[in-house]
């Protein structure tokens, strides 16, 4: 046994393996937002197509998924099916909300008419809510637990798998 070789080998190899193990399961798309762990910024916005304004505060007691999106954004259209399926499946326990980002109401309305709306989409006139949440580009999705605290943020189109795992983290799915 050559102890020098063993020691040198382990000194190089073990820290590297340790770092990889510690980072396992990390998804670079889960962006650390300063909002995570903080109370979700409140908002009160009117739904697309008219109706009474909805406020985040009124949903307290139920986990909320807030998805910032737009019809001009291809990945948003791609994740639409996953979100709609999620809303249909967990709609009783979790409130899904779309917040329209820099888009025209008529285009959003006709899109929702074509593809179906499984949950309300809200108009963010002037983009105040998007600014409060620090949205950098759509789609971005925030997961808020029943007490109104932001649990996680996802950057990019959601797949059904990622959606259900993040829903679990927010306490909204079995």
């Amino acid at each position: 046994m050559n102890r020098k070789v063993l020691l040198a080998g382990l000194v190089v190899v073990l820290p590297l393996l340790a770092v990889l193990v510690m980072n396992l399961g990390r998804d670079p798309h889960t962006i650390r937002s300063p909002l995570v762990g903080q109370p979700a910024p409140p908002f009160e916005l009117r739904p697309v197509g008219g109706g009474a304004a909805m406020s985040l505060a009124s949903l307290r007691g139920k986990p909320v998924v807030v998805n910032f999106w737009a019809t001009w954004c291809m990945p948003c259209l791609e994740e639409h099916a996953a979100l709609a399926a999620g809303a249909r499946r967990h709609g009783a326990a979790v409130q899904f909300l779309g917040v329209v980002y820099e888009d025209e109401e008529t285009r959003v309305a006709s899109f929702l008419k074509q593809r179906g709306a499984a949950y309300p989409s809200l108009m963010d006139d002037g983009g105040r809510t998007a600014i409060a949440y620090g949205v950098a580009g759509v789609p971005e999705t925030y997961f808020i637990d029943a007490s109104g605290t932001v649990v996680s943020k996802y950057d990019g189109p959601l797949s059904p798998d990622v959606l259900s795992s993040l829903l679990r983290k927010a306490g909204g799915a079995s």
Partner: protein
Amino acid sequence: MTPALGRALILLSLLFSTVGATVAFASARRPTAAGLVWTRRFAYAFAAAMAAANAVMVYALLSHDFSVGYVAHVGSRAVPTWVSLVSLWSSLEGSILFWGLVMGAYIAAATYALRDEHPEYMPWATGVWLVCAAFFCFLMAGPAQPFTTVSPVPADGPGPNPLLQNHILMAIHPPFLYTGYVGMTIPFGLACAALLAGRLGHGFLRPLRTWLLVPWIFLTMAIVLGGWWAYEVLGWGGYWAWDPVENASLLPWLTATAALHSALLSERKGVLKGWTVTLVLASFLLTILGTFMTRSGVFNSVHSFTQSAIGPTILVFLAAATIFSVLLLALRIDRLAPEGRLESGPGRDAVFLLNNLVFVLFTFTVLIGTVFPLVVEAVKGAQMSVGRPYFDRMAVPLGAVLLFLMGVGPALPWGRATSEQVRSALLPPTGAALGLAVLGFVLGARSPWTLLTLCFGGYTAYVTFTEMWFPVRQRMKAGEGVGHAFVEAQLRRGRRRFGGYVVHAGATIAIVSIAVSSTMGVSKEVQLREGERFELGPYSLTFVKSESVAEPHRHALVARVSVSRNGRELGEMTPRMNQYDRQREPIGTPAVRTFLTEDLYLSVMNIDPPGGQLGLLAMINPMVGWIWIATGIMALGGVIALVPRRAAVALRSERLVVAPGAAAEGSR
């Protein structure tokens, strides 16, 4: 039906590889003729089963059999046949299946090529290969199953990642990379065999070097094909971004290149055997690290497959293989006793050592830069990235030193040189060195590093050419014609030596081209209205108009730009902006026109068809085309050096009969 057949073939491969590995190790411990034969049979059987599984998948892809999970995931009736075919490696499960095919081909080829040789090593080597093979079969049988059954069977599928259809290079680059990565398994097995057998004889170094050279050639081409793809597709005008996955392919290339050099020293002088073996083991482990980096989802990169469940499994394999390698080295390295002596003091031996040192330093530099963000994230919880400045600052001097060593090493005699020898060897090339640097200065090179690189490049080019010419000149002095002398000296006798210098020539051109292209480019960003014109160097560019094109899988905005150079019309170039259905950001496809010494590169930044506005990035990239040519030269050199063993044996015996003592082969 088809999914079940595929699954059965994968289970069969798993069976053949595990049983084969067991038989191999048993017959390595207690050698019998039957054990050797059965070890080889299992190796062939594994390769055959893997080939059959791939054939089933290709058939399913081409016949749009959406009952197969992988086909339902990546197949589509709408795509052309070639896209269906390359879908085999377009997504995770298929790429692992393809990996298995390449591995089977390598194992079968190496088993066949070495079937009658080295019985004291081969069962160990085959055993190690089959253990690696068994791991990938396990991946396919468990966490990354390509042959899942889909029910109900969908009528159509989404098709592969649109980027795969965007450029033909994207279809070629992955197979080259896999062939480079997977091939490192063979030298790994041979190196492990040397350690397990407790000796590394002169005769066994030859296959080790040969089987290291094969994946090295593929890896060299794969790395550059990847860069070429980025250059032709991504639109920022560069070919290398120090992205984690790019680095992942560079790391094993660096250690393998170092290993090829130290193996030469081991073969020639019987020294540094443990070091050579260590480098070979490291090259394999780095390919597995690269596989992990691409497939675990831990690293953020344009190349990575999306998050998948196989990350932990690959990490377990990486950890097991790494710790096995370290233990094996610690236990057995002392048995690989040197047979000769390494000369200290100035001489080719010392330059070889220095070359290895720089390559290893380079490897650690890139490895640390790649992994550092993970360390920060793990320790401080903050996200960060190590940018180009770090890598450039480290890589430029290391590359320059390597270039210089490539000139100095071959110029010096083996062993220890006297100061007189050193002077007479090292002084003549300085003229060429200064000449190229002055030429560069006249043509506008001002960056000190570029001038230094040109200087070293001229030096190395002179030495490389002289060394190539030397054996030909010797024969010509003896009265042979130049053509005959060249064929005899370079292509028949000294192929390995000649091949090595061809690789050096390619590498010299590549390093000089990289230095020039990254410091002497000219670029200009302009906003143009239809009909407006601007000048860039000798080029005059006019924005004719923009068009909107709808294609099945993407929308494209195409800018038509007419180009003339020094007043001569060159026609239109059409850079475009593609919006893929499944891609978040639009991707500009640049238009590139290649001339002998430079590329004209046009990339759309923004385009507004109603207003007729175009934001254009125009670049003159000097010598980029030479990087691709240089890589072709390097690969060619590698192929020349791969003298088939039988041909070498034939040549040796011929020499014994025909011309005893007329050995102009080898170096002075």
